[in-house]
């Protein structure tokens, strides 16, 4: 633990360049292998039977007919996945979500599964499984579910976090509170107060690759799992625990991942595939259909948020308050809590209070989605901030600059900020040509800010130097958006060699120590720290080997620009030894040369972004069109700027979809109406303009290169930026996301009539 993670200013030679990614060629030739692209000898096809009811007691499941169908090799129900969670409530929820135990809790909840010799027989077998349901009243709306009279989803849950333990169970699982100061006092000092309620509908991460895995359990208790995941080590722990396997005997290999965005951070069908394989005695491939992906994986919370902000005439915010209700699906979560923490994180507030309520509904288990919970809170807060600026007669950017948090500000969620980028992003936006570009009729401009914490976490990396001087870097954080390129750059930088000499791979769970998953924008931050540490460890060995080759004390050897250099005039005749030279002799100087690193990458730097958006609205139809979009975000240090831009653009595009058209639509029967890409409308190419980006680099003091996470913050501002743009275009404040054409037209008609 003598690794020093502190930032030290330096000139980079590799970091900050834009080389081609190491996994690129496989991906443009179709050779890259994703979850569904892998097969094993004797493999069966797994399929899952799902509840057609939003809420129902499972009275009886008769699988006998399915078992008798020729070609069916295993049929399982919850009985085949006994509860081994030992009081671990979060794992129990994951187990119950994988296979319903006593109740189906949402439309699409798994109730049984089959493994058969082909997909046709498997589908046929599902039809032969008879499930006797007792249908219960259901609830899918977050506000209605929080009411006292709402049907109870789990009668064992009593609201946590209240002053007194409640006497009756509730769908509200938890109340959380953040803030400081005295908001009553603050509002009393305000000259202007804006108070509004907002709603956002549930969205899905919308990764193009459905969940897919191949599971193989052997009679000796060893097992293999090939799977698309954001964290194969986490999947190993989950699966080992749920199936009673020894973790070290379950090897999990992460395939290439076709998008995750938070949706592949815990197991869904993988325990089912393993249980099927165990019962059938053969490998089982289980791939979700798109319909299953929407009905039974992923989605984010639907929310209902009340915001109140007051300011003095001079533009100083005196108090800010928010109450946030987030849906969790049928299992307890901490989604409103994150919303409550992030809501006012951009501002320097003397008096602030946020309260979050977690609400159970008969919808799929809420999963993380890129800066989970932050976009909805930012939508509500940034809409109200914009409105308050209008009431004050202040420019929306200037108003935010006046109230922006800075180094030393107490964050609304508690701690005091170090060096942060909200002020600089706002200044950059103020000076951006986009802000001055003229607008035409029916067009409006909006801007908004966003915040995300960024995470670090447990990380383990191996750096092996081949005898030819090439470097293989084995990391344990799944590459979701180009991190193998970034980490190769970091290794090259630290070793002082060329990028082309480094090849990074994602190692399986048996080849490397534990790694937390790629979430919270931690992939590049954490693994680059471990890579730097591993490279520095390797350099120690390289220096030692050079010293041996020269037969001089190792303390006289320094490492510069990829070479060992003998320090001092007495060694004037010793020409530097390159990494290649030393590697070539490694067999006789002590064997293989490697650097390893196991660390907890902590101290991730918080990240801020400000977005600008121009929207055109057709006042006769409510149709919207994004005309121009600009992202300004602090990266700390952009290791591979092209992929940083890609993260900014991708997050903005997802936010645009969320703001305008994406939503889960449930029928009165509690069934999902739009479980496909036809009617769950993610943006298509022709919906979007080019997305301009501006990368700011305010170094994170807790990373040697100043790196912060960049993956998530970009999805936080768009909902609000677009809502502000639409509101400015049509002159009506939009308070319900998505702002689909029917909602915009209805708002316009209400305004015209009233």
């Amino acid at each position, binding site marked *: 633990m003598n690794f020093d993670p502190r930032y030290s200013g330096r000139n980079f030679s590799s970091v900050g360049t*834009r080389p*081609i*990614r190491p*996994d*690129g*060629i496989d*991906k*443009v*030739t*179709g*050779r*890259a*292998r*994703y979850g*569904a*692209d892998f097969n094993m000898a004797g493999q069966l096809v797994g399929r899952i039977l799902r509840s057609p009811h939003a809420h129902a007691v499972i009275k009886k499941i008769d699988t006998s007919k399915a078992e008798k169908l020729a070609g069916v090799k295993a049929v399982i129900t919850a009985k085949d996945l006994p509860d081994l969670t030992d009081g671990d409530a979060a794992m129990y929820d994951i187990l119950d979500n994988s296979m319903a135990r006593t109740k189906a809790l949402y439309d699409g909840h798994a109730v049984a599964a089959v493994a058969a010799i082909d997909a*046709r027989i498997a589908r046929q077998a599902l039809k032969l499984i008879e499930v006797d349901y007792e249908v219960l009243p259901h609830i899918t709306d977050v506000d209605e579910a929080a009411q006292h009279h709402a049907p109870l989803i789990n009668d064992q849950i009593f609201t946590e976090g209240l002053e007194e333990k409640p006497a009756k169970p509730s769908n509200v699982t938890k109340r959380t509170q953040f803030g400081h100061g005295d908001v009553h006092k603050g509002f009393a000092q305000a000259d202007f107060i804006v108070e509004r309620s907002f709603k956002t509908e549930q969205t899905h*991460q*919308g*990764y*193009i*690759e*459905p969940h897919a895995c191949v599971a193989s359990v052997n009679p000796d208790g060893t097992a293999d799992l090939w799977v698309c995941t954001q964290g194969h080590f986490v999947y190993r722990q989950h699966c080992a625990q749920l199936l009673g396997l020894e973790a070290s005997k379950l090897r999990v290999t992460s395939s*290439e*991942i*076709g*998008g*995750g*965005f938070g949706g592949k951070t815990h197991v869904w069908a993988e325990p089912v595939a393993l249980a099927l394989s165990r019962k059938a005695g053969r490998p089982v491939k289980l*791939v979700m*259909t*798109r319909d299953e992906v929407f009905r039974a994986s992923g989605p984010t919370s639907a929310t209902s948020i009340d915001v109140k902000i007051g300011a003095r005439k001079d533009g100083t915010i005196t108090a800010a308050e928010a109450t946030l209700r987030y849906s969790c699906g049928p299992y307890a979560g901490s989604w409103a809590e994150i919303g409550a923490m992030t809501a006012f994180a951009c501002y320097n507030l003397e008096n602030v209070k946020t309260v979050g309520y977690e609400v159970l509904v008969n919808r799929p288990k809420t999963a993380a989605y890129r800066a989970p919970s932050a976009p909805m809170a930012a939508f509500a807060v940034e809409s109200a901030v914009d409105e308050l600026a209008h009431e004050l007669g202040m420019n929306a950017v200037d108003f935010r600059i006046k109230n922006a948090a800075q180094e030393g500000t107490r964050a609304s969620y508690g701690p005091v900020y170090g060096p942060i980028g909200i002020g600089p992003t706002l200044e950059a936006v103020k000076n951006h040509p986009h802000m001055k570009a003229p607008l035409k009729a029916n067009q409006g401009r909006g801007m908004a800010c966003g915040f995300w914490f960024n995470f670090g976490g447990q990380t383990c990396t191996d750096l092996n130097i081949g005898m030819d001087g090439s470097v293989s870097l084995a990391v344990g954080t799944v590459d*979701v*958006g*180009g991190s193998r390129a970034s980490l190769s750059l970091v290794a090259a930088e630290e070793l002082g060699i060329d990028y082309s000499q480094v090849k990074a791979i994602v190692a399986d769970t048996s080849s490397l120590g534990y790694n937390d998953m790629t979430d919270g924008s931690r992939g590049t931050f954490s693994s680059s720290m471990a890579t730097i540490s591993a490279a520095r460890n390797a350099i120690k060995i390289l220096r030692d080997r050079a010293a041996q080759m020269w037969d001089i004390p190792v303390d006289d050897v320094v490492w510069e620009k990829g070479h060992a250099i003998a320090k001092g005039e007495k060694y004037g005749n010793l020409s530097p030894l390159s990494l290649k030279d030393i590697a070539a002799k490694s067999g006789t100087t002590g064997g293989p040369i490697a650097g390893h690193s196991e660390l907890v990458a902590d101290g991730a730097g918080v990240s801020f972004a400000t977005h600008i958006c121009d929207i055109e609205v057709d006042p006769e139809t409510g149709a919207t069109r994004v005309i121009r979009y600009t992202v300004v975000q602090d990266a700390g240090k952009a290791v591979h700027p*092209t*992929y940083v*831009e*890609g993260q900014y*653009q*991708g997050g*903005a*595009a*997802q936010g645009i979809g969320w703001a305008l058209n994406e939503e889960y639509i449930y029928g009165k029967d509690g069934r999902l109406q739009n479980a*496909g*890409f*036809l009617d769950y409308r*993610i*943006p*298509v*190419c*022709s919906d*979007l303009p*080019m*997305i301009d980006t501006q990368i700011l680099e305010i170094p994170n003091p807790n990373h040697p290169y100043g790196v912060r996470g960049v993956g998530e913050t970009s999805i936080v501002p768009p909902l609000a930026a677009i809502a502000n743009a639409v509101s400015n275009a049509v002159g009506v404040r939009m308070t319900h996301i998505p702002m689909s054409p029917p909602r915009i037209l209805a708002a316009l008609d209400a305004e015209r009539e009233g």
Partner: protein
Amino acid sequence: MAGVAVSTTINGDAVEYLCQPDETLLEVLRDRLGLTGAKEGCGTGDCGACSVIVDGRLVCSCLVLGAEAEGRKVETIEGMAHGDQLHPLQQKFLEHAALQCGICTPGFLIAAKDLLEKNPSPTEEEIRFGLAGNLCRCTGYDKIVRAVQDAAEVMKGA
């Protein structure tokens, strides 16, 4: 269910297979022929990840029956490069980082190839509408459009 015997041409090679009457071309390519470059993102023609070209027409292979390929010429991502020479679109996708997770990439490349063959000098709008049948959730399409624009320039010069 009676199997259908099919003789077809895939990426220039004569191929024969037996498939079920309701089996899609995508299933045949992936599960029978080991050509897993075409991906199933939806199975309903909404995402374009399974795009292939059949007799010069861009199609979703999930919406074509394997039996329909009889006597046709099928082009897939596996046949896009010539030997070790990448197609200019493949090269430009790499240079522009027009992919993040890469699952949509084979479909985009096939669709873009079809687009440029029919329209060698597309405007940005023509590219955007031409590729609207291919969903990408990672990139926001910006770098994809730029890569196609750049490839079009290169291909015109070639």
